[in-house]
């Protein structure tokens, strides 16, 4: 395959960036999108140019590290996959492909296509955990009965890999799908109910502090999420928040 790549190049966080054009040839349709970028970077290094910086780690679709806004969609045109799982056969020979970083005030660009997603970490730190006394007599979590339906829901929410595609896709740059998944995965479990009130209040407060936008229920995040996280969790978070904000004894 011969392709034309239009890639966002930005020297560092403070520099202004712009789209640069790179022709690339002999791309195998069976290669992954990141392998295609590796190929481009080898060519750039051979020519003595600065390679394109992009995020990646496991390349198995489970770490949530790879990002990229490809041809107007987070993680590209395929559904239910991360960029590392996107294959070049999704494109046609001769195509022009636009590659941009995830855009959000809360995800500032560090270099080229690499963005700082530590805002997600700070939201997690605000409440995305269950406090456990590790003095040696901790109760086995499996000893607490959990209804199968709730366990399944909690598991579905927990499959969120925190890649940020929801934020990148949302026209408002909202992080509610991510935060709702993190709130819900504990809210459905008896172990998580103990801190449910503080968790939802603190995580939403941190989300707002980070500068994410407001959810207007377009549903775009659900469509582009590589793990298929459902809007159902946003409704769950809204309900949890409403309950916490109206009934909390604080």
């Amino acid at each position, binding site marked *: 395959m011969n392709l034309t790549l239009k890639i966002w190049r930005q020297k560092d966080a403070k520099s202004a960036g712009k789209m640069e054009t790179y022709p690339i040839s002999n791309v195998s349709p069976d290669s992954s999108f990141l392998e295609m970028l590796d190929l481009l970077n080898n060519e750039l290094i051979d020519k003595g140019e600065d390679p394109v910086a992009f995020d990646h780690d496991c390349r198995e679709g489970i770490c949530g590290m790879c990002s990229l*806004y490809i041809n*107007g969609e987070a993680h590209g045109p395929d559904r239910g996959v991360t960029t590392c799982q996107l294959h070049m056969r999704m494109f046609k020979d001769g195509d022009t492909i*636009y590659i941009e970083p995830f855009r*959000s*005030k809360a995800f500032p660009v560090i270099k080229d296509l690499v963005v700082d997603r530590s805002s997600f970490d700070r939201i997690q730190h605000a409440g995305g955990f269950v406090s456990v006394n590790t003095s040696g007599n901790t109760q086995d979590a499996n000893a607490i009965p959990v209804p199968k339906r709730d366990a399944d829901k909690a598991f579905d929410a927990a499959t969120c890999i925190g890649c940020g595609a929801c934020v990148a896709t949302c*026209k*408002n740059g*909202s992080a509610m799908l991510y935060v709702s998944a993190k709130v819900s995965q504990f809210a459905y479990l008896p172990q998580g109910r103990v801190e449910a009130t503080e968790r939802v209040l603190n995580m939403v407060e941190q989300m707002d502090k980070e500068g994410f936008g407001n959810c207007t229920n377009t549903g775009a995040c659900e469509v582009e999420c590589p793990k298929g996280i459902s809007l159902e969790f946003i409704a769950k*978070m*809204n309900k949890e928040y409403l309950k916490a904000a109206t009934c909390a004894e604080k």
Partner: protein
Amino acid sequence: MSKGFSKTSVGRKVLMALSGFFLLIFLLQHFIINSLSVISPDGFNSTSHFMGTNPLIQYVMQPVLIFGVLFHLMMGINLELKNKQARPVKYAFNKPGENSSWMSRNMIITGIMVMLFLGLHFYDFWIPEIKTKFINGDMSGLNAEGGMRYFEELQHKFVNPIRVGIYCLAFVFLSLHLLHGFQSAFQSVGFRHNRYTPTIKKLGNLYAIIIPLGFIAIALFHFINSSH
């Protein structure tokens, strides 16, 4: 309710939804009353007189309604401005149509169009009504010939084809607004259920089409009648 509920992203969307529910109920009762103008002019006259002179409706419900409309508008603009700030650098290439409907992405446009129409609607109906009742002090509901004035006034407003055209166009925007807004309001207050949500979506689509179409039909009915 915790301090600052209306300042949080979730709190704002809940309040937006609650004001939306209130306006949905108001719109339904407005439609029912307007329908009377087609079915029974006398019924329309007596209902309009009751609505226009009942102290509870005039002094309690009417201010609440005006507050609800303004709140929905101001909150919508506020949310839109905050959302614009959340993405200061736009994408060079974007395909929003791949993952969301036009209606869901353009609530601010359809909403502002409806609000602009409401300005005309207030100028046409509400301001003359307030002038008649509270400035001229005429609470009788009667015209110069001694008959009830409401039906006659309504018919008179639908004589001008440009005004009827604007009226119909506004309800097309309202329909587009409701096609997303109805089901979105349920999601915002946390109501989503495998059994009921599909029904809510169908009901929302029906409401969003039937009610605005009904208003348009009423306007066209009076326009056609007046031109014969």
